[in-house]
């Protein structure tokens, strides 16, 4: 799906306030509320956008956040990813270049669950060659506002049709 300027403007407002009023957006951009609603639905359906409540795990009692770096047999990468995706405690999962093939972030209620994840779950997946674990002690920044809209990050003016 290609996103256009109106989509970008909608995304930009929603990233700051996920509950911004669609009527307000409609008035601002001179379109109908239904248009905004339809655009948002389409962005959600295409998995470009999710409007969600995000918490700081440490503030809600989730004690243990860990990054797990995995080395995976090349020809099993896809099946390993599929297995990892289904593990609920893994919240963020990426395929990377570098010394490791996969990086997973897990958010768990306690250390015991981490041990279980490492030994019982990751240890059982065929194709996982080795893992390295970093336990997060403090989170200093956590933003989801990455966007092609910020001036200083703008790729080349294409997304620059702001006001």
């Amino acid at each position, binding site marked *: 799906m290609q*996103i256009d300027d109106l989509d*970008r403007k909608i*995304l930009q*407002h*929603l990233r*700051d306030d*996920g*509950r911004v009023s669609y009527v307000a957006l409609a008035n601002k951009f001179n379109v109908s509320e239904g248009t905004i609603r339809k655009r948002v639905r389409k962005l959600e359906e295409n*998995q*470009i*956008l*999710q*409007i*969600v*409540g*995000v*918490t700081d*795990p*440490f*503030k*809600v009692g*989730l*004690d243990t956040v860990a*990054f797990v*770096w995995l080395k995976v047999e090349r020809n099993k990468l896809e099946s390993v*990813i599929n297995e990892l*995706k289904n593990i*609920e405690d*893994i*919240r*963020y*999962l*990426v*395929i*990377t*270049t*570098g*010394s490791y093939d996969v*990086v997973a972030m897990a958010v*768990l*209620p306690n250390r015991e669950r981490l041990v279980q994840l490492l030994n019982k779950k990751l240890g059982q997946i065929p194709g996982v060659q080795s893992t*390295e*674990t*970093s*336990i*997060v*002690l*403090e*989170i*200093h*920044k956590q933003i*989801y*506002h*990455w*966007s*092609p809209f910020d001036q200083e*990050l*703008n*790729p080349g003016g*294409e997304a620059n049709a702001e006001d």
Partner: protein
Amino acid sequence: MPRIEIDDIDRKIIQLLQDDGRLPFLTIANQLGLAEGTIRRRVARLLDERILEIVGVTDPLKVGMHTVAIVGLNVERRRLEDTIERLKQMPEVRYIAVATGMYDIITEIVVPSNDALLEFLITKLNEIPWIMNTGTSLVLKIAKQDFAWGLES
């Protein structure tokens, strides 16, 4: 130990909003058998105290931020705080965690292009004198991005 600053009602509200950030307060109120004003007040507190954020999250790779990297840093221990302060100011850095293990600090960098990443690594990071070593993993694909982390009862 982390301070748990929420009660069971907050927890339920958060759970519902993790699933749908735009769920009407009235719907939440009806589901929990509480007044809409109560929900509104509690959500306002959760937002004020930054326990909860309600945001539109995009997949950066799908909206023109073509380069995402996980960069681990080793820094001089006694300059850890200074390094974090400097990193926090940089808009390219969207996640910073202090960690045990191979790296002292784990960051996530989101930029529009590989050129921008190179520029960031060799110019911006180099301006922080206490960084001794970095390891960059370029993200090829985001396979999962889920923020509804377990507030299981």
